[in-house]
């Protein structure tokens, strides 16, 4: 029988079991329990924990540990993740593997402690300079979160890319039972720096940017082809398909269940990877679908852009509209989604695209 466990603690223990050898970070609510837990747990196992003096320093410590071929982790929230953008872009550029957990809190600037999804654009498109992308995982429950932690590192290492583990304040702070994954002992990457110059890495001034740009696009294409993850339901005959991830995605499944009971032909797609975006999930949707509806915990609607773009790409012969239901912060209730659906049916809400 599994016991109640806090999301952040479960995630931290899952990281330990996934073989995290190094953590560096800085305290910021609502992610702090991750580093608090690891401050005791990692040294206990003979692994390394460093409380960095800053968010910037933390991500750079992670860069160093990752360069040496070990599983390295950091976690933060809100402005803390903003400060890590330079580092994330650099880690991406060096094609190192690591995992960055963003326990998203609501708001611009200093922000609030509310749970939110307002960092969607930044995580899926990269808030640092350049064309890099991160693989973005977005669990809906503590169980899914702990189950995604080892894959987060495996994906990062397979593609030599940063995985952003994007969860929400509410998931980090809530408790529910989960079964923790087994311990694994990952091998040090073959392309690690080991002091012997076995992995030949040249200087920054000796690189061919054009060749690298081609390789970057190929890598992205490969990830898009192989790594889309999603859950969906009732999409084959749906008139309207909801798209939502994380806790809103979980909540929307409940709303769909109720709406179906009420006779509405609705379905859902819950992206588990928000980059690569699960385009393949859209290919399974009823060809006559009348629209897509995102349910998001942001102020402005961000997920809806990817939904609109994906709908455009998948439904080539016509323009399928996309609506956005933004609850701004928190976890949208089933009622929120159902009310929003009713407004859309009544033409009270204009489509976003």
């Amino acid at each position, binding site marked *: 029988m599994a016991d109640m466990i806090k999301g952040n603690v479960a995630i931290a223990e899952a990281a330990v079991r996934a073989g995290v*050898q*190094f953590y*560096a970070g800085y305290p910021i609510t609502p992610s702090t329990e991750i580093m608090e837990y690891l401050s005791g747990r990692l040294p206990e196992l003979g692994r*390394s924990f*460093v409380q*960095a*003096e*800053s968010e*910037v*320093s*933390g991500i*750079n*410590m*992670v*860069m*160093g*540990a*990752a*360069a*040496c071929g*070990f599983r*390295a982790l950091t976690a933060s929230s809100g402005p803390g993740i903003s400060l890590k953008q*330079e*580092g994330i872009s*650099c880690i991406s550029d*060096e094609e190192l593997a690591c995992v960055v957990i963003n326990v998203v809190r609501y708001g611009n600037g200093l922000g609030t402690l509310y749970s939110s999804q307002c960092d969607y654009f930044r995580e899926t498109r990269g808030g640092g300079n350049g064309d890099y992308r991160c693989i973005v995982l977005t669990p809906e429950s503590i169980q899914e979160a702990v189950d995604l932690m080892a894959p987060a590192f495996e994906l990062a290492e397979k593609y030599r890319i940063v995985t952003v583990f994007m969860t929400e304040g509410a998931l980090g702070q809530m408790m529910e039972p989960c079964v923790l994954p087994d311990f694994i002992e990952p091998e040090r990457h073959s392309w690690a*720096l*080991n*002091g*012997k*110059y076995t*992995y030949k*890495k*040249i*200087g*920054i*001034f*000796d690189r061919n940017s054009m060749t690298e740009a081609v390789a970057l696009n190929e890598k992205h294409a490969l990830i898009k082809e192989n790594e889309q993850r999603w859950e969906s339901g009732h999409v084959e005959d749906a008139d309207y398909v909801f798209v939502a991830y994380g806790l809103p995605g979980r909540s929307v499944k409940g709303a769909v269940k109720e709406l179906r009971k009420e006779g509405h032909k609705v379905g859902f797609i819950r992206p588990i990877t928000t980059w690569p975006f699960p385009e393949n999930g859209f290919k399974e949707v009823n060809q006559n679908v009348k629209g897509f509806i995102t349910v998001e915990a942001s102020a402005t609607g961000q997920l809806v852009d990817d939904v609109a773009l994906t709908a455009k790409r998948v439904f080539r012969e016509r323009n399928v509209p996309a609506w956005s239901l933004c609850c701004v912060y928190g976890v949208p209730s089933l009622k929120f989604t159902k009310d929003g659906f009713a407004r859309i049916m009544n033409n009270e809400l204009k489509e976003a695209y």
Partner: protein
Amino acid sequence: MAKERKVPALIDNPMSFCAGCGHGIVIRLVAECIEELNQQDNIIFPIGVGCSSLLGGGMVADRLHCPHGRAASVATGMKRVTPDTTIITYQGDGDAYNIGISESLNAAYRNENITVITINNTNFGMTGGQMSWTSLPDQKTTTSPKGRDSGATGLPFRFPEMVAGQFDVAYAARGTVTSPKNVNKLKKYIKNGLEAQINGEGYSIIEVLSPCPTNWGLNPVKAMEQIEEQLIPYYPLGVFKNRKEKQDA
């Protein structure tokens, strides 16, 4: 018996520093010490941004080009997961003391077991000679066109003295490359720094006063004289924190 002096294989490549730049001498000394300490196959360089990054193009060793100013933090991550590998940051004064002051200072504060080499040429060389915190009072740079106003921008920044005075570090010294004698003395400093790390004594820093003929607008020989005459009065040479065993001995 004649002893051959030749550039260590580790860095036996042409490097693209300006004529008379001091980087080349320092890099050679570091490589010599690495060879003498038998660390050639046990070394990683987290490298700074600026002219120091040109090192990355010329060496035959593991290196990582770090974000600007962050080399000491990157080094920390490296050292914590591979404590038996020798980690040497190679940075300039703009990198280590301006944008990277937090990372530089905090590595010293933790007495992180790494070696930091900072090339102090009193300006941002790579970007064309902007003022740095080590620029001298009244020094003309592209961002202090009328000369550095120390009242508003601060006095020359002395990092080795600061960390030696404030924190429990293993070794802190400043040398220069102006003469064969100083070069040889600098090599001893570098070797001490590396030995401190290899012995697990903690953080070591060696700052090097180094000429920037291009941005100083001087020929290489005059630039060396400039160090002797203008820089050393602000930046005394010597050891500010000696290794404990050395003090005992």
